[in-house]
């Protein structure tokens, strides 16, 4: 089975819009949220609450779309955990990277994330983000006077989970941005999320399929 390296659309338009607007919203939420918590005095409390609430509501809508998109397009498969190449990638970040080795992982048609990346995103999607919503939405409901049934939980406990989740997101953001500097270059990593195209290793069969059924995925040099 021979492998072909071609430029393909790996991040669809929706996914790119989702990613960047989610990035903007998360930064807004971290900034305003830290002002609400009191560790950032760059904005007033009332403004911070207003901004945080609006950004959160927009992100909720965005997430509803994204979840629908992931489920209906089958893109969720990219996030399923796998052991394939896991050790190699981990070994690369721990040792290989210092020796000037190339990143061992190549994007494939069915796997646009390396196994470590996929596992991280899965953790973010299944634990950290749900924690932020499972605490944030009740908090919003209480704020909107519809949270009577949540009184037993206590706003303090809800806020505790919410803040802890926000700390976890901050940690993720730091690591995520740092990892963009690994491998080829920062630009090489960011560019696909802007243009959508990246080098993907495909089998002959996959190439034949793409050419026949999804020719739009292939970048044509104009």
């Amino acid at each position, binding site marked *: 089975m021979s492998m072909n390296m071609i430029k393909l659309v790996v991040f669809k338009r929706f996914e790119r819009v989702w990613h960047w607007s989610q990035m903007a919203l998360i930064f807004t939420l971290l900034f305003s949220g830290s002002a*609400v*918590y*009191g*560790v950032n005095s760059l904005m*007033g*409390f*009332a403004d911070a*609450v*207003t901004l945080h*609430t*609006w950004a959160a509501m927009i992100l909720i809508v965005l997430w509803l779309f994204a979840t629908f998109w992931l489920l209906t397009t089958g893109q969720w498969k990219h996030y399923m955990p796998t052991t394939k190449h896991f050790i190699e990638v981990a070994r690369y*970040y721990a040792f290989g*990277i*210092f*020796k*000037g080795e190339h990143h061992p992982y190549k994007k494939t048609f069915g796997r646009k994330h390396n196994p470590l990346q996929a596992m991280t995103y899965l953790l973010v999607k299944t634990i950290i983000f749900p924690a932020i919503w499972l605490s944030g939405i009740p908090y919003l409901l*209480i*704020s*909107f*006077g519809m949270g009577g049934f949540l009184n037993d939980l*206590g*706003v*303090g406990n809800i*806020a*505790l989970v919410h*803040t*802890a989740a926000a*700390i*976890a997101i*901050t*940690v993720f953001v*730091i*690591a995520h941005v*740092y990892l963009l*500097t*690994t491998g080829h270059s920062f630009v090489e990593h960011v560019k696909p999320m802007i243009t959508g195209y990246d080098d993907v290793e495909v089998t002959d069969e996959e190439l034949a399929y793409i050419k026949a059924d999804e020719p739009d995925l292939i970048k044509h040099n104009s």
Partner: protein
Amino acid sequence: MYNSSFTCRHLIRPLSLLLCFLHLSVVQASEPEVEMGISEYSKTDQGHASKNNKGKTQKESTSTTDHSKLEALKGPFFSGPEVTKVCLECHNTAGHQFMNNKHWTWDYKHPKTGQHLGKSVLINNFCTNARGNEGMCAQCHAGYNMTDSNFDFTNQNNMDCLICHESTGTYYKTPTSQGNEACSIMFAGKPAIEWEKVAQSVQMPSRNNCGKCHFYGGGGDNVKHGDLSSVLFDPAKDVDVHMSEQGEAFTCVTCHVGEAHEWAGSRYEMTVHDEVGTGKPGMPRETASCESCHSASPHPIDTVTGVKLNSHTSKVACETCHIPEIARGGVATEVDWDWRTMGKLKNGEGFKLKEYTQGDGHHRATYKSIKGNFTYAENLQPMYAWFDGTMNYTTIKTQFDPAKGPIDINSFSGSASDPGSRIYPFKKMHTTQPYDKGNNTLVYMSLWGNDDSALWGNYDFGKAIAAGMKKNGIPYSGEWGYIETLSYWPVNHMVAPKEGAMECSQCHTKEGRLSHLDDGSIYLPGTQKNKLLNIIGLLAIFGTLAGVLGHGALRMVATRMRKK
């Protein structure tokens, strides 16, 4: 202190005419002054009331009766009871109605605590007790001839209709009994009351009627409450949005709605959580809470802030945010009263030392021979506590442990876990006053009288207490001492316009106004209260940063080494 200021005046005077002129033009008579005598009529008292009575917006009366045209009110009258008798001829159920009113009975049985309260029995930490001193204190009794504690509460002719209903501003009351000789000039020099004129002027109570007593509670302008002062006769909008002519121009009875001579609002049993809510138009309200007009969701919900503010009302009283400071508008309130210095005289005569100049330029007595030392405050941040509306009083019957520090003259219940409680603002008053050292109780003092026991004139606590206790049949050990007391006055008035309400960040910050209530029973964002979470957060975030920076640094070092 007193000496230096006195000398100062004498030094300044010859210095320069110009200086004096400038000085006077800024604030009239701004020098602290010593005033001989113990007169209790301060310049502010009637001055404000009559000034306001000329009022800019005297609204035309909507009453169906013009009392000035009534034959029966033509007189002549020579006393208050004569007027009352005529009033009750037409208003023939008014006397019966008023018979149960606290302004008449000075008596209140608390429905929850069962305590026997009211002015006739209570001791406060201002002038202490009205009981036994009715001769002086009954100037604010809505009745005539209450000279002692044996007043006949069944005689309707002794009701004082005029004090609440006259509208000329010329009506006044004087002590009902002779005080000490030293006090004889206390109330001298008032023009005689023109009974026919005041009788014909009757109308619904205006703020002058209520204010004459309620703005001067505790012995002077704003002394007691902090949120009830002569400023409210004509307040600027930023002082009181409801009562200002530039605001709603409400009178007291706009909120304290009455029906059958009983009206809403009591600080013995307060409504901090109004379950009745907004009434229908024209409906008499039995509560005078903010919510009874504004509802429990008063903020417009077209902004996140409005929605969020509405979610505060189940925990925070409206007053807490909307009355950010008390004693606003230029009239100070007393925050400390020290009775221990009572009785200093100059050449055998009582005096006042006026060393506090308040915002409106008036001097307030920081020392009075008959009362001791005072400390004032203006634009004062209230004290905040959980309050369910129920007040408990230390009465003459209450025994306390003096070793346990300041005694609460009144204490209140309420907690974060009680859905009926709200975080409420209070004015806190601290006093050092006499008590019965043997029995560990408060004392009734004889303050007013023309015998040798009355404190005001004789300046002897021992005699005043012995007489006060004996007069009322209260056991007295014969030994007295001083005790520190505290009293708490719920704040409801001087509501600022919405621009003047508290900012979120005044509570939602590390050392905010409610920090002392942030004990885990509530969650107050913005305080970074959870120390463990703070540490975990710092470790996680800075740990990750250090991790990636370390990783990055190692990569750079490795790259450089490879290039060599």
